[in-house]
């Protein structure tokens, strides 16, 4: 996506000073009620249509997932899982996969290009593609394995939560198109309340462990799921139980950077101080330098015995 001036920016990759942020925005969120999804993929198509994405025609490998994985042309993907959550029970769980728009985004933390990833004040995490350098650090930073690099232009892509639509007061394309009302969009508060109602309904239908997926490890997300089995998110095509930014990424992008730059600067400074304290180390010229007689050599030998 391009930068949207009508949306203020809360966080900007590789930037230490605050971004413009005078406008007040409420936090928004998308709620995906997995229990209502019928796997029609209308949202997947709407996403392609709105964002003008046309991937190459894939191959049928005998499952409904199509294509097999997220890619630069597929920012949202229906994941189909056939599971047996309890003895003698069978369920077909369908999860709309894509960027979760974390409140603490690992991609943004990892990105080295200033402003290539931004987080708007409403919570949407967006890639500003023209600033992307194609290093793939965002892929390493993401706890959900979402961003994908395009081989054609070496830039990373993922769901924008239709920031361009949201900026002008529309809801994301997938929300508009969903025929069952499984996907809803609004303020994060409203979406949480909506989830409470849905969970109560699911509880009454025998799903005792129904719940909201809004993982606190990443500060909560701006795409949330209502899950029938919230105690076992892994059932839903490996949705992580407790996603958080990997400690390796946190360490690398946290304390390491200022310490490393400080260490380099200190060492250079220490060298300079040593120089101005002790001066250059000059080997004095001997008067008899050109001669190679034995006397001189003997003198020489004795000189480095302590």
């Amino acid at each position: 996506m391009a930068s949207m001036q009508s949306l203020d920016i809360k966080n900007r990759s590789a930037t230490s000073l605050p971004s413009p942020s005078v406008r007040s925005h409420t936090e928004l969120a998308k709620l995906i009620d997995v229990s209502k999804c019928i796997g029609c993929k209308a949202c997947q198509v709407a996403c392609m249509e709105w964002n003008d994405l046309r991937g190459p025609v894939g191959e049928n490998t005998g499952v409904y997932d199509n294509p097999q994985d997220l890619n630069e042309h597929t920012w949202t993907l229906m994941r189909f899982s056939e599971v047996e959550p309890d003895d003698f029970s069978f369920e077909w769980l369908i999860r709309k996969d894509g960027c979760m728009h974390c409140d603490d985004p690992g991609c943004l933390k990892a990105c080295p290009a200033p402003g290539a990833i931004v987080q708007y004040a409403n919570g949407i995490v967006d890639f500003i593609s023209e600033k992307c350098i194609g290093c793939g650090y965002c892929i390493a930073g993401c706890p959900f394995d979402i961003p994908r690099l395009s081989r054609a232009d070496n830039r990373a892509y993922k769901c924008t939560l239709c920031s361009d639509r949201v900026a002008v007061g529309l809801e994301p394309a997938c929300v508009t198109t969903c025929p069952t009302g499984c996907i809803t969009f609004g303020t994060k508060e409203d979406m949480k309340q909506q989830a409470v109602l849905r969970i109560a309904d699911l509880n009454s239908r025998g799903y005792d462990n129904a719940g909201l997926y809004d993982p606190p490890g990443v500060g909560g997300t701006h795409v949330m799921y209502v899950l029938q089995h919230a105690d076992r998110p892994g059932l839903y095509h490996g949705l992580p139980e407790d996603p958080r930014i990997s400690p390796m990424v946190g360490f690398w992008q946290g304390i390491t950077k200022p310490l490393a730059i400080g260490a380099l600067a200190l060492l250079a400074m220490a060298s300079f101080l040593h120089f101005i304290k002790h001066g250059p180390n000059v080997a004095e010229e001997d008067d008899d330098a050109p001669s190679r007689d034995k006397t001189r050599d003997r003198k020489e030998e004795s000189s480095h015995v302590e």
Partner: protein
Amino acid sequence: MSNKDDIRRYKDGERLHHWIVAVTFILLAMSGLALFHPSLYWLTNLFGGGQWTRILHPFIGLVMFVSVMVLMVRFWRHNLVNRDDLRWIRYLPDALHKREGRLPPVGRYNAGQKIIYWSTVIGMFLLLFSGLIMWQPYFAPVFPIGLVRFAILVHAFSAILLMMVIILHIYAAIWVKGSLQAMVKGTVSRTWAKKHHPLWYREVTQEERK
């Protein structure tokens, strides 16, 4: 400064080789630091922008790796560590205070130089393997994300350590007058050799006498 009587310390090929390593290192340090810390991102301008910096860095890295490997083969024999080197380390404060007379006798290289040699060699292996694992778009996609994360961490750490080693190396070359000449003209003065590498000097003069 130089003199017909100076001793030849490096052949033309060896010096050319050293400067290939030096130039590729500077380019790698600048392009790497540009991506390492936001305050240094402006360094990408020297390489034609962020995309070009990202593209060029690993290829320059391969050139440096190959050069260091050849340099390693050329000089490994002179950099074997011996008992005197271990003693030399303990006399480091004397070395820093220009009290060479107290130091254990030094051959072609002192312990400090050997440390620089070996850290560069080890550092290059770490940087190569970690660099390959994180290299987009060619290799990184085939490795699990956890390994890529680890590789980035290893790469950043070994790069910073190598840069610290090289800062010391450059400072030593500036501080010890007459050293730079060894890498520019290939020769050193006899007084330099006697003062800083007496055992080597004795070897060389014995060769000459034969």
